[in-house]
């Protein structure tokens, strides 16, 4: 509620994307606020990944724009997105398995001295600080990430997003491949990031987790936003109905109302 009165950190507006005959996204508009956890839910193929990939600059929209810091962009590149403070923890984590933990955390943002030589020592120190803050236990930073466990790998990907220093952090299915304990850790982490003033966007199939953390829930179906609602106003089964499209969206009144006014 506090967040809604301030300006959004990121505003996506009227985004469209189709692959041949298939419409992936249709006129999607959404605001992302600082200090808030926004969940994006929807069935497989609803367009969740396409939407966040546009924010990350990996996919180009056909039309529409993305507004960050009072500037509008028809599309972002990965470089631009990171530069504008939008970091993404991809579902596949986008790690280089044969490279070590430090190289992965600083991938694309290596610290150098003399403008040329990679500063291993400073990178190792900062990597250790971030991992400690995230409470991720990795004994040696020289371990190739391909040898780490699922939770540790996720930790490396999150640490990279934090090193990128943005204020918007997107998680694509962060708990999909995780055990109960590791999931709980990631959830706590997302809450801490939001408390620290970052905007957290999370895609999840797990409605139990969504209701545990999200303040707002954005429901996508067939590439369209059918609802953006406050989590506290809804029951999980109502969200399921929105995802599945069982309740006719035009007659019940909840679906058409895109942003909860109160």
């Amino acid at each position, binding site marked *: 509620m506090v967040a809604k009165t301030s300006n959004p950190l990121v505003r996506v507006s009227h985004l469209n994307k189709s692959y041949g005959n298939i419409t992936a996204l249709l006129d999607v508009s959404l605001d992302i606020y600082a200090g808030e956890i926004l969940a994006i839910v929807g069935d497989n193929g609803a367009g969740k990944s396409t939407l966040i990939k546009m924010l990350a600059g990996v996919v180009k929209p056909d039309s529409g724009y993305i507004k960050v810091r009072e500037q509008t962009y028809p599309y972002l590149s990965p470089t631009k997105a990171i530069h504008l403070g939008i970091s993404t923890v991809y579902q596949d984590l*986008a790690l*280089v398995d*044969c*490279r070590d933990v430090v*190289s992965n955390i600083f991938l694309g943002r290596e610290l150098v001295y003399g403008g040329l030589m*990679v500063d291993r020592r400073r990178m190792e120190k900062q990597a250790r600080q971030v991992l400690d803050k995230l409470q991720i236990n990795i004994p*040696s930073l020289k371990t190739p990430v*391909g040898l780490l466990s699922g939770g540790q790998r996720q930790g490396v990907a999150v640490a990279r997003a934090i090193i990128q220093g943005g204020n918007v952090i997107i998680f694509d299915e962060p708990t999909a491949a995780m055990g109960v304990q590791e999931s709980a850790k990631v959830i706590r982490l997302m809450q801490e990031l939001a408390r620290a003033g970052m905007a957290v966007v999370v895609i999840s199939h797990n409605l139990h987790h969504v209701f545990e953390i999200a303040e707002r829930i954005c429901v996508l179906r067939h590439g369209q936003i059918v609802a953006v609602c406050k989590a506290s106003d809804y029951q999980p089964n109502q969200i399921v109905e929105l995802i599945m499209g069982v309740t006719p969206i035009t007659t019940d009144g909840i679906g058409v109302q895109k942003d909860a006014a109160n």
Partner: protein
Amino acid sequence: MQQIKRWLWSWNEQFSQILLGLILIIMAVLLHHASPFFMTWDNWRNILDQSALLVIVSLGMTFVICTSGIDLSVGAIAALSGVCMALAMHAGLSVELSICLGLAAGAAVGVFNGLLIAKLNLSPFIVTLAAMSVTRGIALILTKGIPIYGFPVNFTWWGSGHIGSLNPPILMAVLLGLLAALVLNRTKLGYYTLALGGNEEALRRSGVAHKTYKTIVYTISGLTAAVGGLVITARLNTAEPLAGWMLELDAIAAVVLGGTDMKGGRGSITGTIMACLLLGMLRNGLTILNIPSYYQQLTIGLIILAAIIISELRLRNAPGHGTITKED
């Protein structure tokens, strides 16, 4: 369990170099017993001199193979750059300017390869195969197939001059080797070269201009091949359009023998240099022992095969090769 795997893997990292070093020592001891001439300084200078060309060309090839690419055009580039230097000198340009022109020609072919592979996303094998033919063709057209010979002494110095008791090619190989090791292990370019081979998509999503870096890697290979062309041309005092024939295959063999992974993401300059020395020593030893050159071909082929089998078995357990079992 993880501890053991990590230990095994870190040992694996050094595995190729340790193995190569052992083979080098064993072979040296055997050859020393077989021929008293082998361990003389003159013979060793000879081995180093013969290996320098391969070392220089293989350095660039190491970078390319680290990105999981391949460069089949290096032999042809060496020929073209030599021809360019020769033509420039015969046209009355200074030696220094001619060398620069030759190197620029090699780099240009590298840029051409890199742009096609990176920006158009074409297969490195096909692009450099075509480039090999095109480059060799240009070298033949420029010379009408006839070798060009007779250059100033300050040009031939680059191939057969003396700096103390060493030759310029040996010193160039040492200096370029140090530079290559520094770049691959300690600079952004090196980090991205290895990441390109490991997971190019991850590099792209991290906001790195991955295509530019890929182009740079092929340019480096073109440049080292051109330096190889300088060495060949200056040493023989002749620019041969057919120089460097099959040089690319020797370079690829040396890089793989040195422990660089053909699948990319893992590579070692030290290994490459050691492998070049091993091949040079083997050729030298077999010649000293009066073994016919047909047997040399056979032996070298079998050694490369053995190296690839060992490296493949070893890498089955390395991360990024799929078969590893992860905890949870």
